[in-house]
């Protein structure tokens, strides 16, 4: 009877799921209220009920190769309405973290970030030690005199060297994970149409947070996430423009306050601060619109907030702080940015890739 699907309710995977906040899955009695209230679930293959059942059955393969897992935006409408308090939103979030770990290339990094609960000192400590060591090697960690010019503390070539290599690392590792995921979710369902043709409307949806806006319970989360997303996009744009300013327009740094590129950078900072504050507020709220956060979730949010706070303080510190303090804040900023970038394919940040791909896959498999 090879046709029978073997179920393993006590699998290692399920134990891990419990550790990652998925313990309430045992309470589920499969009433499907979750599917009925979910505004994002596709009609043909609704979630999260089947994912709850696969979780109870301990089917890790199914869960890792399931696009539905990623189409979920963790609105938590299901958690709000679940008559058994089985918290489907949390279960899917936990399952996503395990899926990211499973898709990770190289695998050990997936495990390292996945276990952020115990490994977070490494994940932040190594980038910090790296910067300290690098600066020591480059200029003996000399703190420059006032007025502070950061280039004197960390030369631009070093920044380029580090972050261009990190970008390469991300492209390779995240790319490998993305390809693995894309192949797995496409195994059972043939796709139609062009990838780009589907990607564009998906990106439009992401840009305006169309899906996120459908949520009831997590309505407050939409704008925080929106501000953070656009903050990061504008920060990236500002960074690119600064390179243009430096090497094409040959302007001197720091740029004056009213310089258009500077304004873009500051607008990005405002978005990031506001978004970060809103996300933090939602995370701390008693009614938990974002579900029960785990160490994995908190690690990612902490690094993002650290990037934002140290970033703003770096800009302000240049004028207001003692150069030594400002310099160390800058080092912490670089530490957090490096940590955020290196862990990108393995942390919650990876949802950027997998959710986008799942949405593209969904568009390419919808019957017209």
């Amino acid at each position, binding site marked *: 009877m090879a046709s029978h699907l073997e*179920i393993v309710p006590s699998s290692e995977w399920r134990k891990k799921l419990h550790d990652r906040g998925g313990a309430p899955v045992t309470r589920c*009695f499969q009433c499907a209220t979750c599917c009925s209230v979910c505004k994002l679930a596709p009609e043909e293959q609704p979630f999260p009920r089947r994912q709850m059942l696969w979780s*109870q059955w301990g089917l890790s393969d199914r869960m890792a190769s399931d696009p539905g897992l990623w189409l979920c935006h963790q609105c938590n409408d299901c958690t709000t309405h679940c008559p058994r308090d089985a918290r489907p939103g949390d279960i899917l979030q936990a399952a996503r973290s395990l899926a990211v770990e499973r898709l990770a290339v190289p695998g050990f990094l997936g495990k390292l970030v996945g276990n952020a609960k115990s490994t977070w000192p490494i994940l932040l400590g190594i980038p910090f030690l790296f910067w300290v060591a690098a600066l020591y090697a480059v200029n003996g960690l000399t703190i420059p005199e006032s007025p502070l010019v950061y280039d004197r503390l960390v030369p631009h070539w070093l920044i380029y060297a580090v972050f261009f290599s990190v970008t390469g690392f991300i492209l390779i590792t995240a790319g490998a994970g993305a390809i693995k995921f894309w192949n797995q979710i496409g195994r059972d369902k043939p796709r139609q149409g062009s990838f780009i043709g589907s990607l564009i409307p998906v990106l439009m949806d992401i840009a305006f947070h169309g899906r996120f806006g459908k949520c009831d319970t997590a309505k407050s989360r939409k704008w925080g996430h929106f501000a953070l997303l656009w903050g990061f996009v504008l920060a990236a744009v500002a960074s690119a423009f600064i390179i243009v300013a430096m090497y094409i327009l040959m302007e001197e740094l720091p740029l004056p306050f009213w310089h258009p590129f500077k304004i873009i950078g500051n607008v990005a900072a405002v978005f990031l601060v506001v978004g970060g504050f809103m996300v933090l507020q939602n995370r701390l709220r008693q009614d938990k619109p974002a579900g029960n956060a785990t160490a994995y979730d908190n690690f990612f949010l902490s690094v993002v907030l650290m990037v934002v706070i140290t970033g703003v303080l770096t800009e302000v510190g240049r004028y207001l702080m003692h150069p030594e303090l400002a310099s160390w804040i800058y080092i912490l900023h670089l530490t957090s940015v490096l940590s955020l970038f290196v862990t990108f394919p393995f942390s919650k940040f990876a949802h950027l890739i997998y959710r986008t791909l799942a949405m593209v896959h969904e568009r390419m498999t919808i019957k017209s």
Partner: protein
Amino acid sequence: MDKVGLFLCTGCEIGAAINTENIEELAKERGAKFFANHPCLCSEEGINLIHNAVENDGLNGLCIAACSHREKTEEFRVNPLKISMERVCLREQVAWTHKPNDEDTQMLAEDLLKMGLARIAKNELPAASQETIDRTVLVVGAGLAGLQAARAAAGMGHPVVLVEKQAKLGGYLNRVKTLVPEKPPYDSPHPNNLADIVAEVEDHKTIKIFKGSKIKSIQGQPGQFDVVVQTASGEENFKAGAVIQATGAKPYDADKLSHLGYGKSPRVITSHELEDLMSQGGLKTPLPGRVVFIQCAGSRDEKHLRYCSGECCATTLKQVATLHASHPQVECAVMYRDFRAPGQLEHFYASVQEKTGCMFTRGEVESVETLDGDKLRIQMQNSLLGEQVSLEADMVVLATGMVPVSADGEAIRELQDARVRINKNESATQVEEAKKIEAKNIHHEGTEILNLHYRQGPDMPVLSYSFPDSHYICFPYETRRTGIYAAGTLRAPMDAAQASEDGWGAAMKAVQCIEANTHGMAVHPRAGDTSIASFFLQRCTQCKRCTEECPFGTLNEDKKGTPEYFPLRCRRCGICLGACPERIISFPEYSVDSVASMIKAIEVPEEDEEKPRMIALLCENDAIPALDQAAGRRMQWNPWIRIIPVRCLGAVNTVWIADSLSRGIDGVILIGCKSGDDYQCHYIRGSELAKTRMTNVQETLDRLTLESERVQVHELSHNEFHRIPELLDAFAETIEQVGPNPYKGF
């Protein structure tokens, strides 16, 4: 009755719908000694009017022409031993449902009055009961239900005799350590306090206990049962007023479940065997890694038990909770078809899911196979996602259902009758047929429990699943033997808490029966009826139709086959009256003659008047209440139909049909309760018998070249009031199409 008064109420729109001027004349013409009308007869003034007339004019019969007999029963209550009363329904059947001041409406009202007066003229007063009633309650079976029944009956001041087959009281629950939760917060097993109840019953002064004993025989009737108990040391004789049978249930035979691995591997056990293991100190080592519970093992299954036993799901929850508490390292999984944890047990279900981490998954288990190395593989289909799944286990627990420990009295009697015929050896074909019946019923031999001396068999008749309950929802504890009540798992599958409650319920029914008998009254459903049937035995032809067709085994037979009537077994349904071809059975207020005289009282217009006349015989239990509801909603129907309420469709004698048709009535419609497996007939077989009898009538009509459509039988339930006008109008239309009765005017 010879001194009848007609009291006409003109309230509730009756006065506005009919002309009451010449009613007094009509009443006097039809033999009434007194007439009065009142705009509100049920008012104090109206009631006084009736009482004064009874006192001053010496009336012994009251004909109350007002609302339905189901209304104002308290106001119009009389002593039935002194005064006979008939209710003529002018409100529901005339004023509310027909065109006011119409010629047809007037004729309808006058006909109903004539019918009422004709009927009451034939009524007789019932004689007061002279029976001596014993107050003892006999409880058969000392499981939880029986113990509670004994305790309850004794608590209500009745002497109790408790008979138990085993040497120890307590029944099945002696095997069980804990029960499902019975108290808030309903999250952990409840201690089994059986020992306390046993101790209380054993210490009770008015409860006499026979352990290791059986019922040898029960003779007679409720209130006067002669009981013989066979004990280890001899026989005990005593009288009892009522009997409670609480002989419990046994687990379904798991040997029939080999497809689920039972008998193939010692690692497949039943939930009852697990219960034994757990009350004897837990699982044996080496402990299983994973225990899988399979629900509905042999239940809700065409090949096995077709019903749900109701308690297995909760028991499994209890076993998972207990197992987890004693062996937390053992993983549990439950495979179910529908998980049934009703009421507060939902809290238990949720708590077990959360605390034990046990997986509960839905589907149909197809097979349990034994693998190498003591492993078992369970294959399941129709899982929630439609897939076939399989799961490995080290131990499988089959949640098997329960089978009542009942005896099929009718089957035993069939067997006995067949043997009598074989011994008589009258003809080869008869012997051959009897042998077939013997072979079919041979497995019932020796299963007797109550050993009743009843014509219809030594035990109670059972429903299709062997439960002796007489009606599945409306009347709990009732059986088809008056004064004998079923309680606990014998009555229906149930858990301990319900069985406990059942014991109390059955005890109350038993006490109620004894009380009713003491007052010379019938029990449910004609509770309070003081009349009993009389048999004019000189004309009896020993056809045995009454003894066969009585749903309650009221009649025994003497050697010649003449019926022997036991009035205290009787429910007064009148099915015997409907059955008797010699028309020798009658009740003081319901007889072949009284209904026939009602039919005779109907004015049948000449054919050229083009006013057909039809009779509707409506069952009092469902059809009349439905009609009253339809009337309350002011529905209208054909005014040419005359309604006669009957005790049951089974209480319709076919001679009434013949009388009607020979008098020129154009058609007769019968409306009764639903028959079939889920029958709603209050007397079990009434509508079914009526259908058979009327089919015979229709065949006769065909032979007489009278159209068979003139006689129709319909069934409806209490809530289908909207069908009353539909049925009546459709019938009237059919009769109009068929044309006038050719016997009209003869």
